[in-house]
């Protein structure tokens, strides 16, 4: 028996209570899955900076807070106009709303769509769609799961399930809105999202993670997307948690033959944020685009890890992550592209660009290519810099004020990421958010 370290104990205790309350009292298939999850977590514990994948990010601040398992349901802060803003009204699409990881039926709105399309809470899907869900949840053996994913599985209860049967085009996006607040004290939620896209189908998924007050809470989210042959999937994640929140999330994607997957990951909020994106081009001709943007200030720490696995030939991947870091914030980018031995004609391009606004801001960028085939086209690049003084002078020499010019250049820096967001109400909403969020006032440099 491994020793039980203090930081694991609150989670183990919470699990003991939680497991008993679940249907089937641990004997159902879900109960067994949860048990595997907690055992894995108990064995691993929280990662430390000795783990290569966590070298630049310490989760110690997270482990020091005794988070209680969120019970959800408290929706008083979610007034109609708050909700309107969070759903980017008038955005015509299905909105599934979650409060502290639990589906809030009365706040949600699911619109009619094509036959066979499922948009529902994971809680319902665990009951009604076991045949579809279980293989997904068991895709990766529990013994392989990293700590936070194992913890997410241990507390598996709710989240979202979207299924698009083959040959179906969903014109309207599906918006999954995860709202968090703390309850009597700091709470943790573990939402799980599963998206299954059939062959030759098309869907746009938007996940929002939002805090509506400056609460301390912990979101430990996990999302799995499986795209069939020839499917087209567009995924946007808009993270604007509270400035005191902890946000750890994984996005696991498997794309089939000639399928296309595009991800837009925007991180604006959170105190300590970690995103793990892993995309496997599991069949020939897969196409993957990863766009990312992180905007940090104060003492925020945002860590993006991405992995693109070219497992089969003729896959294409394009990755561009950009960061704007102000004040004493810190960013981490770790991007790994693997080309497997038989994945010839792979074409991969990876870029990470960072703009440091303050002297104290810091970023670690580590782009890595691991290529095991000679017949490929791969490149990567990383830059860390400040606002271009020549561009600044050029704008000022045309009459633009210093602050205006700096602000314009910062907006220009992020504009290509923003313009790639395909859902137009969301893009417009994002532009507004960035207008508020991007640094405006800057110390005049000597």
């Amino acid at each position: 028996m491994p020793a039980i370290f203090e930081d694991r104990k609150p989670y183990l205790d919470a699990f003991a209570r939680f497991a008993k309350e679940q249907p089937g009292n641990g004997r159902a298939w879900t109960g067994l899955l949860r048990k595997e999850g907690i055992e894995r977590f108990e064995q691993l514990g929280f990662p430390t900076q000795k783990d290569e994948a966590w070298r630049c990010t310490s989760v110690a601040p997270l482990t020091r807070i005794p988070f209680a398992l969120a019970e959800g349901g408290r929706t008083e802060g979610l007034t109609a106009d708050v909700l309107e803003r969070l759903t980017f009204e008038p955005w015509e699409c299905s909105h599934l709303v979650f409060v502290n990881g639990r589906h809030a039926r009365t706040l949600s709105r699911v619109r009619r769509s094509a036959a066979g399309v499922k948009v529902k809470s994971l809680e319902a899907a665990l009951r009604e769609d076991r045949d579809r869900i279980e293989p997904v949840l068991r895709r990766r053996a529990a013994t392989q799961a990293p700590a936070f994913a194992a913890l997410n599985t241990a507390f598996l209860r709710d989240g979202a399930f979207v299924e698009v049967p083959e040959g179906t085009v969903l014109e309207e996006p599906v918006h999954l809105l995860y709202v968090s607040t703390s309850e009597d004290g700091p709470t943790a939620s573990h939402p799980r999202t599963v998206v299954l896209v059939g062959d030759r189908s098309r869907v746009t998924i938007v996940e929002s993670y939002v805090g509506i007050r400056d609460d301390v809470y912990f979101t430990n989210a996990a999302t799995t997307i499986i795209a069939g042959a020839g499917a087209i999937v567009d995924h946007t994640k808009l993270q604007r948690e509270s400035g005191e929140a902890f946000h750890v999330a994984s996005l696991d994607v498997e794309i089939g033959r000639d399928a296309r997957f595009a991800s837009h990951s925007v991180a604006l909020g959170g105190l300590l944020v970690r995103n793990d994106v892993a995309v496997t081009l599991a069949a020939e001709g897969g196409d993957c685009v990863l766009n990312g943007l992180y905007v940090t200030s104060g003492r925020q720490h945002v860590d993006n890890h991405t992995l693109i696995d070219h497992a089969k030939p003729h896959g294409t991947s394009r990755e561009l992550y950009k960061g704007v870091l102000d004040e004493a914030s810190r960013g981490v980018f770790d991007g790994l592209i693997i080309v497997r031995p038989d994945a010839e004609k792979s074409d991969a391009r990876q870029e990470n660009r960072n703009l440091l606004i303050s002297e104290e801001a810091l970023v670690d960028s580590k782009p890595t290519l691991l290529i095991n085939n000679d017949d490929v086209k791969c490149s990567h690049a990383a830059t860390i810099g400040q606002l271009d003084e020549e561009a600044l002078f050029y704008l000022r020499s045309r009459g633009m004020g210093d602050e205006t010019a700096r602000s314009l250049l910062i907006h220009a820096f992020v504009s290509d990421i923003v313009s790639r967001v395909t859902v137009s109400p969301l893009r417009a909403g994002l532009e507004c958010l960035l207008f508020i969020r991007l640094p405006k006032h800057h110390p005049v440099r000597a």
Partner: protein
Amino acid sequence: MAREASAEEGRAKTLLEIRGLRATAGGKEILKGIDLTVRAGEVHAIMGPNGSGKSTLAHVLAGREAFQVTGGQVIYEGRDLLAMPPEERAREGIFLAFQYPVEIPGVSNMYLLKAALNAVRKHRGLPELDAIDFLALVKEKMKLVEMDDALLNRSVNEGFSGGEKKRNEIFQMAVLGPRLAILDETDSGLDIDALKTVAKGVNSLRGPERAMIVITHYQRLLNYIVPGTVHVLHNGRIVRTGGKELALELEAKGYAGVEESVRGSRQAAPPR
């Protein structure tokens, strides 16, 4: 004009007066005492070999902070130019056409122009131009430099050819309508056709209220933009001043020849 010296009575008003201007970059002195007076309506050419300080002078006048002014004075329309930040100089009517126009991905040419024009107008107490008037102005000025419409909505100078960048500078100048335009090696990197087009655009902007300082290494440009006065800048000082024929002399003798002829009889500022 009452406040000007009696000797200048009947002449156009002084726009710019540079007295003993010294400037350094990275601790190295580049301008070593420049004197130059420019009146409304005049076109001055400043010629000189590489490293003589031509571009530094242009940038110091436009307010580039990378250069430190260590001495002298610059009076622009009766005010201390050196005390103004670059944007204020622009709003007061100074325009620098860059030798190397900067590429700014993500900022459209149109946006920059509109923001710049409105900043200038606001400074002069004029209302912002509405979209229709702005577009009409832009279309009119684009014709002057035969610029392609498509460039308007592209990012500023991004992916422009050398010629397109230079046209864009003159186009911006035409839209902003400065009182003092400083053209920093506008001819560099232009083929003869592009040079003629750009020069035609510049010439159309000449007028009794507007002055220009044309900085160039080669005499060629001055065949198309004919200056009233030519100055030779050497080692941070103006070593000779003359009429447009001075440019031809330079062409014939080269800079070394002109330096030879001025040695020992260093010419000071143009007549006051």
